[in-house]
């Protein structure tokens, strides 16, 4: 960890509190620094480019400078004389069917995370997958995607992926591997597989499960273990506890009016999250004639996307949540009254009363759900409460587990380690996963691993685990291999490859087949044969083709299951949770690199994390009050000591974090991730034990006095003006439907010196519904993938030079300790009176006939005047050659319909003009107008909640035109009379009057 060079002003949190108090919570703020009005914040606010952002900071010697100058002068002179180089066209020898050069094809497949699949459509240009879209017919996707699906194409083309079979670090071959393991397998055959162990991550693939059955026939004593760090173990244990059986719980938010989420972040990536987000936000849309809203209560220790959407959010230490759940359960009669001896302390007591009353009024239309980070007993309580409220069968349904073999992952790994310890394991085959890095620290997995005589690892990267293995086999990426997987509701998708393995990778199916003595069987044959064996109807070919085309196998969603009525173990003399002493440590999967598997994905690394807005790093998240008590400030490096283990981590103050609880995200601090991921952040796994996989108390924090610079984008592109994000309550809206309009003065359109444009055909516009936006970032990555947007690296981000065309601004309102959180997607506004257009000296940014604010890269000379004049700060400048035009595999990644920008060129959102042009050409070929919905921008397509609507505002029947007529509609910085085409619908909250102190609305 390098000490930071940057000096920042220390914040006086007491003064901040006083200031927020004085403003009576009416003010929206982006960060603590903004409230404190520090110099650093002013820098980002008043200057488009922060101080010296335009300068070359890296140390350059005089000699190097002269070399560079000389070279650039020579090149500048020569380039003017160069002629276009000769290009070749390489046609097919035999053209494949259905391939039309220049037209993309879409193939339905699925991308699993933690074994649970989301259906996607992969866009393929001449055989190259370049972009992932959601599969509208898939129940988990409904056409939307999450950040991980969007970034999958970059992982596919990652030049750091392992490219050869290696044996003890030396290049080898697949056939050498087969020879090498054949002797070991023969020995195992004689021992009935007693020394053979296979370790996988969560498996929902029916084909793989069938292969394991076959393995069990050949090697009856072999064992299959499963381990991955982020699982639903606690939920399964809770179901066993309450219902006596393993179930998969599915929530129907489309029927839920009151939702209580106990540390359950159902809007962040996880099983069914896209579907849940869609159903949840659909019940919050307030439109003309429809004024009902659901209500969400969230109790959480670490601010999450779900907490930010909550109508009421209560930060609570994780160990206290069980007591809260028990209190709610008791009040609702779900458990016996004597089970909760003492009253809840303040401030939880009024919460319990209010929540309980609300739930009671919404029997059968409420949901109580619990996050996988909470212990099984809390899950059991939720089952009991849902049962007592009559929600089961309505908003909550149970099915059989989606996993092929549901096991407790920690127990499974522990059993494996104990077997190794006992000398029972001769051969360990790891199909994916990276247990050396992700295993709990107390299992000492890496030390035990080296006791196994033959270790084989199948992985996308030569990572921490493969470094300790005899054999490493490059794994085929999910877009390169045949497989199948189940979605959150059990729906099976057959995954088809979009491209032949780039580096001869093998799938888990193929490696398992090799263990079964069939190394020549292709993944295609394995998957197809399995499905053929399961098919009972006549025409298998027809079934197979339909399943592949649709991206799902019909009627495979698991049937609802009746369960016995839940029972919750009583406290049985245990002391109920008195406030625990000492600091608590909380572990969370990282919102962008997850458990570390995406650490080498630059798009995800540079994606600002939804709430902290940190990039390229994780941090120890503390509440402002706890930091104040400990005398810590942002970016200060502390030593976290937990159960005799220590890591050093930078501190980050996060408003809304529970007091006395420190959250650290998994997935960082990897030492063999690749060029991008190695050395970012600190390793939270070093503190994680199998006893406390999600939280535990007894953490000590010791300041080191060092500082570590974190790159956060929370101040970047700050706008100055009033009412940027507009929020009201449902009650207020019903009383005064036009309160949003009245918040700002709208100048008359003719009050301008700019020439007026007439739009005869289409006039493109976009409306963003802040009430539906959950801040998930899918749009940002979708835009990055669609528009060939480069990443710039941590140092450049710290200078405010990140290139995302679409950013999500996060605003707080209220106190430091429990603020309301709001997200606002900001992209180019495509102003009708665009301030950028008039200042460009070379006409590189001009108005199109359809009202787009065109950016012409080949004209741009990089004066950056446009950017300086943009009040929304949505223009991005290529200060350096950010786009990697050298790495061959990354060339295949690019969208061929969008120019790759070079250094010295300004860029910004184009409203996906390439998609508009395609739609226009298709419409004109058919001699018709472009229909509403023909143009779907990349961000719109990815959005799980449909918060972004794009279309023709000249057509009064288009969705966007109708939204522009809604009373909640407003323009950002309307007082400047820029007349943006991108506009917003204000956010409404639906607070419970019992929990809201009466206040003035502003």
């Amino acid at each position: 960890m390098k000490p930071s060079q940057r000096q920042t002003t220390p914040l006086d949190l007491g003064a901040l509190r006083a200031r927020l108090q004085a403003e009576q919570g009416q003010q929206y703020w982006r960060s603590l620094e903004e409230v404190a009005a520090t110099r650093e914040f002013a820098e980002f606010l008043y200057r488009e480019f922060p101080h010296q952002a335009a300068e070359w900071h890296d140390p350059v010697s005089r000699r190097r400078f002269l070399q560079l100058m000389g070279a650039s002068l020579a090149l500048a002179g020569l380039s003017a004389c160069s002629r276009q180089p000769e290009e070749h066209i390489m046609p097919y020898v035999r053209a494949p069917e259905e391939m039309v050069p220049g037209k993309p094809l879409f193939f339905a497949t699925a991308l699993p995370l933690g074994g649970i699949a989301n259906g996607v459509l992969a866009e393929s240009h001449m055989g190259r997958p370049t972009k992932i879209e959601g599969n509208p017919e898939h129940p988990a996707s409904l056409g939307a995607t999450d950040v991980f699906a969007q970034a999958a194409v970059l992982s596919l083309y990652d030049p750091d992926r392992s490219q050869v079979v290696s044996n003890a670090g030396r290049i080898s071959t697949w056939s050498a591997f087969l020879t090498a393991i054949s002797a070991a397998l023969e020995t195992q055959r004689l021992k009935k597989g007693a020394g053979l162990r296979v370790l996988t991550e969560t498996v929902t693939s029916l084909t793989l499960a069938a292969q394991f059955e076959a393995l069990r026939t050949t090697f009856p004593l072999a064992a299959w273990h499963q381990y991955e760090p982020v699982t639903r173990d606690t939920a399964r244990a809770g179901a066993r506890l309450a219902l006596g059986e393993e179930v998969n719980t599915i929530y129907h938010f489309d029927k839920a009016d009151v939702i209580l989420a106990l540390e359950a972040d159902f809007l962040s990536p996880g099983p069914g999250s896209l579907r849940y987000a869609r159903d949840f936000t659909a019940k919050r849309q307030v439109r003309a004639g429809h004024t009902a809203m659901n209500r969400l209560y969230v109790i959480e220790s670490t601010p999450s996307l779900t907490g930010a959407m909550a109508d009421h959010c209560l930060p609570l230490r994780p160990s206290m949540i069980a007591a809260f759940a028990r209190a709610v359960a008791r009040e609702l009669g779900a458990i016996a009254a004597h089970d909760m001896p003492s009253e809840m302390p303040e401030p939880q007591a009024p919460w319990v009363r209010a929540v309980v009353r609300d739930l009671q009024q919404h029997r059968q239309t409420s949901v109580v759900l619990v996050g996988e980070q909470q212990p099984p007993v809390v899950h059991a309580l939720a089952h009991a409460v849902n049962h007592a409220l009559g929600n089961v069968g309505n908003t909550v349904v149970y099915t059989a587990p989606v996993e092929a073999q549901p096991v407790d992952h920690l127990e499974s790994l522990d059993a494996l380690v104990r077997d190794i310890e006992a000398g029972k394991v001769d051969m360990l085959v790891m199909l994916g996963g990276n247990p050396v890095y992700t295993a709990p620290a107390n299992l000492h997995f890496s030390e035990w691993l080296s006791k196994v005589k033959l270790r084989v690892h199948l992985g996308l990267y030569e990572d921490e685990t493969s470094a300790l293995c005899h054999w490493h086999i490059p794994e085929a990426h999910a877009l390169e291999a045949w497989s199948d997987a189940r979605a959150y509701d059990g729906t099976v998708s057959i995954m088809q490859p979009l491209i032949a393995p780039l580096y001869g990778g093998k799938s888990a199916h193929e490696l398992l087949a090799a263990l079964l003595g069939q190394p020549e069987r292709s993944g295609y044959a394995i998957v197809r044969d399995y499905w053929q064996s399961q098919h009972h109807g006549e025409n298998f070919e027809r079934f197979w083709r339909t399943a592949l085309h649709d991206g799902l196998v019909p009627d495979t969603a698991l049937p609802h299951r009746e369960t016995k009525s839940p029972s919750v173990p009583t406290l049985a003399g245990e002391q109920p949770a008195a406030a625990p002493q000492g600091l608590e440590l909380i572990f969370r999967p990282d919102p962008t690199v997850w458990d570390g598997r995406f650490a080498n994905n630059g798009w995800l690394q540079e994606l600002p994390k939804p709430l902290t807005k940190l990039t390229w790093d994780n941090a120890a998240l503390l509440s402002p009050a706890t930091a104040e008590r400990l005398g810590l400030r942002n970016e200060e490096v502390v030593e976290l000591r937990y159960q005799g283990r220590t890591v050093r981590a930078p501190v980050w103050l996060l408003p809304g974090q529970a007091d006395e609880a420190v959250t650290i995200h998994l997935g960082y601090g990897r030492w063999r991730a690749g060029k991008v991921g190695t050395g970012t952040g600190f390793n939270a796994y070093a503190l994680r034990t199998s006893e406390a996989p999600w939280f535990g108390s007894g953490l000590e924090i010791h300041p080191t006095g060092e500082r570590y610079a974190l790159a956060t984008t929370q101040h970047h592109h700050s706008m100055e003006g009033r009412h940027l994000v507009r929020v009201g309550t449902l009650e207020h809206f019903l009383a005064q439907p036009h309160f949003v309009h009245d918040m700002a003065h709208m100048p008359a359109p003719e009050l301008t010196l700019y020439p007026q444009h007439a739009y005869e055909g289409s006039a493109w516009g976009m409306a963003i519904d802040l009430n539906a936006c959950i801040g998930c970032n899918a749009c940002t990555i979708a835009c990055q993938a669609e528009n060939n947007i480069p990443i710039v690296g941590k140092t450049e981000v710290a200078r405010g030079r990140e290139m995302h065309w679409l950013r999500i601004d996060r605003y707080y309102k209220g106190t430091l300790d429990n603020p309301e959180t709001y997200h606002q997607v900001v992209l180019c506004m495509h102003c009708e009176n665009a301030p950028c257009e008039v200042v460009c000296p070379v006409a590189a940014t001009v108005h199109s006939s359809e009202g787009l604010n065109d950016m012409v890269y080949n004209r741009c000379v990089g004066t950056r005047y446009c950017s300086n004049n943009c009040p929304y700060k949505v223009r991005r400048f290529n200060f350096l050659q950010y786009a990697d035009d050298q790495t061959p595999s990354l060339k295949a990644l690019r969208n061929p319909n969008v120019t790759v920008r070079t250094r010295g060129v300004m860029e910004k959102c184009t409203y996906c003009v390439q998609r508009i042009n395609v739609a226009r050409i298709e419409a004109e070929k058919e001699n018709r107008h472009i229909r509403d919905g023909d143009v779907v921008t990349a961000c719109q397509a990815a959005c799980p909640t449909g918060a972004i609507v794009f279309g023709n505002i000249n057509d009064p029947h288009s969705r966007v035109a109708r939204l522009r007529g809604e009373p909640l509609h407003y323009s950002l910085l309307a007082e400047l009379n820029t007349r943006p085409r991108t506009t917003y619908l204000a956010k409404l909250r639906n607070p419970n009057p019992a929990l809201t102190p009466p206040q003035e609305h502003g």
Partner: protein
Amino acid sequence: MAQIFRPSTNTFARLSIFGAVFLLAVLAWVVLAVNRSPYVTEAGVVRRQPVPFSHKHHVSGIGIDCRYCHTSVEESAVAGIPPTKTCMNCHTQIWAESPMLEPVRTSLRTDTSLAWVRVHDLPDFVYFDHSIHVQKGMGCVTCHGRVDEMPLMWRQQSLLMEWCLACHREPERFVRPRAFVFSMDWKPSEDQLTLGRKLVQEYHIAKRTSCSVCHR
């Protein structure tokens, strides 16, 4: 002391001022002329190809339609270069042994593409779409020239932006009835401008000159 400058110096001074202006104008003209010359635009430069394929022979000699080889011209942005298989549809029967066609046979045998040299090479920041131009009644000949008279291909037009814009501003000067788009020798039976104006109306041709129509 004698005068340094004689009265005639005035004339020289005037001449040199005018001369300088003239010189600058000439320089500017030269630069523009060079930019538009085939030296830069490579218009009219015959390309050597791996196989000396003659459009003249195949189009005017045999009468093969453009779309037999350039199959996607009506539906996609790119017209498409035929796969080796298309050549061999005929050349397994005719000229099956010709040494000139050896690269084609090798391509089929070894499953490697023929590397044709691109003749019409737009800059990479230009996104041209064949299908819409064909649909709106732009003849192949308008941009590609009389291909049926080219033994080896060359670029007929400069492909400069001003050349694109000439038509995007005044499509009536170039548009032709859809039925004759693929015709090599179509001539308007009436006045082109009269016909053009009619067709612009009929085909709903918009004069698209916004930057993002081609650049993005």
